[in-house]
């Protein structure tokens, strides 16, 4: 089985994140890049499915040169090889452009199963997997907290407001996973050393037959018109509990008409 796991490098949420003042896109140089947390669950799930059913795990990322760190992390966890979609023309792509560029690349490299994390910690749109399913004409098995493959079918549990849906489809398919579907493994020393020798193929937009007029900040379908650092919340009242903290809290709630 040919499993492609899509990963994204995001700014470390522990550091201050910024938008660039010139083109209002994410400032990727301002913060350290790390693998998006939910992508680690996707990599782990890909590795488990490979271990159970055989095949190969390919890491696919779209991002600047420094995203190679994130590729190495996924390879160190145990993925077999990687494709890095990198091109200056892709800078500032929105969700529509990104899904288009990724879909073009996936068509080029082929797949039986595409796995992603359900959202990224930077843009947090949570749309990429659904958009890829739409563009690839593949079943959408998203927000999964359980994935099973057998008898030519793929079955997932899709998390819903009321519990979960049991969903069934045939391969090829697009899956997104939620946190706690598994426990992502830490790369071993051996894994880290092996990752350095694993093949990483670089794709530019021409390699993936991506139309330059459909990607990049200038061609985005949506735009940031202006932005500002959020003003700090007005300082609230903080009191020490002197045995009547609950009463004081009730007074506050009453003053705001919550009770």
């Amino acid at each position, binding site marked *: 089985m040919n499993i492609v796991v899509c990963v994204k490098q995001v700014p470390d*949420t522990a550091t201050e*994140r910024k*938008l660039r003042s010139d083109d209002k896109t994410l400032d990727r140089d301002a913060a350290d890049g790390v693998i998006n*947390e*939910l992508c680690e669950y996707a990599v782990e799930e890909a590795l488990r499915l490979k271990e159970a059913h055989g095949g190969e795990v390919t890491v696919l990322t779209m991002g600047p040169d420094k995203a190679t760190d994130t590729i190495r992390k996924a390879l160190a966890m145990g993925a077999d090889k990687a494709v890095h979609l990198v091109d200056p023309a892709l800078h500032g792509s929105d*969700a*529509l452009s990104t*899904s288009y560029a990724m879909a073009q690349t996936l068509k080029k490299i082929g797949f039986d199963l595409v796995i992603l994390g359900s959202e990224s*910690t930077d843009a*947090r*749109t*949570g*749309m*990429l*997997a*659904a958009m890829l399913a*739409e563009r690839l*004409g593949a*079943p*959408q*098995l*998203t927000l999964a*907290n359980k994935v099973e493959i057998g008898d030519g079918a793929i079955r997932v549990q*899709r*998390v819903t407001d*009321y519990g*979960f*849906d049991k*969903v069934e*489809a*045939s391969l090829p398919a697009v899956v997104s996973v939620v*946190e*706690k579907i598994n426990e992502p493994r830490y790369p071993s020393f051996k894994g880290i050393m092996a990752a350095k020798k694993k093949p990483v193929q670089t794709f530019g937009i021409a390699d993936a037959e991506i139309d330059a007029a459909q990607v990049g900040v200038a061609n985005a*379908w*949506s*735009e*940031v*018109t*202006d*932005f*500002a*650092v*959020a003003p700090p*919340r007005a300082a*609230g*009242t*903080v*009191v*020490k*509990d002197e*045995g*009547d*903290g*609950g*009463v004081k*809290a*009730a007074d506050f709630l009453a003053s*705001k008409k*919550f*009770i």
Partner: protein
Amino acid sequence: MAEILVLVEHVDGDVKKVTLELLTLARLLGEPAAVWAGPGYSDIAKGKLAEFGAEKVYVADSADIVDHVVAPKAELLASLVASRAPAAVLVASTAEGKEVAGRLAVKTDSGVITDAVGVGEGLVADQSIFGGGVNVHSRVAKGTPIIAVRPNSTAPVPATGAAAEEKVDVELSDSARAAKIVERVKQEKGARPELTEAAIVVSGGRGVGSGENFAIIEKLADSLGAAVGASRAATDAGWYPHAFQVGQTGKTVSPQLYIAAGISGAIQHRAGMQTSKTIVVINKDPEAPIFEIADFGIVGDLNQVVPQLTAEIAKRK
């Protein structure tokens, strides 16, 4: 006036509160037209949609639409975008709502904005990004604007609409039927409101100390008619189910009132609740960063303060 399509969220035939919020918002932007997807449409639903200003209701009530994951709803909306040329499409910014928006954007070659906390003139959306650190105005540059709006962004205000009903038949494509829902499993959550929709959320974190002790969080929540949330530390420890995790990798909530008990307030958590209107904090560590965003904070032991607050609320009812 051009129509603003609003995808109705409904459960057991009842219209969810977020839809009433979206209709209220849609009235400011154009003529609200509700889109009902799936079985369960009734006079009760119609009455509710009319009460909050729906001029039209497009009803596509075949079971096929909800028996497959997301894609049929996007096909239904795409057919309405093509035939009615609305000024915009509003959906709830929930996990599924955003997926519908994403597929619809691809189908209609339109721009999409998610997690809007407001939509103003010219369909300019307000967003709060990076865990509440930056406020952004954004707009759709191409196609029919598709905007996913966070629950609790607008207070629902009634204003009667005609709710003229129009049946819509959609011929679903094979690819829209590719992911079949074979079973729906409802997990018991009692009478509490849904976490992302609730007007009040009471969350517990590491300071709660154990799964059993979450009972004091639940009691406070019930006294306020609130939903219960949990920080990642609490769900990681197995004290509360992951479905209730508020934060960067869990649910995003934006209620009128958020009470955080025993939660330190790491970015992981703040990213999921920072746009709450009023924040009350109970924590024994005066240095906990969550106090920075508190409107009212109590430095104290939650085991004392929370039950006292619950009792006080009961007394004042």
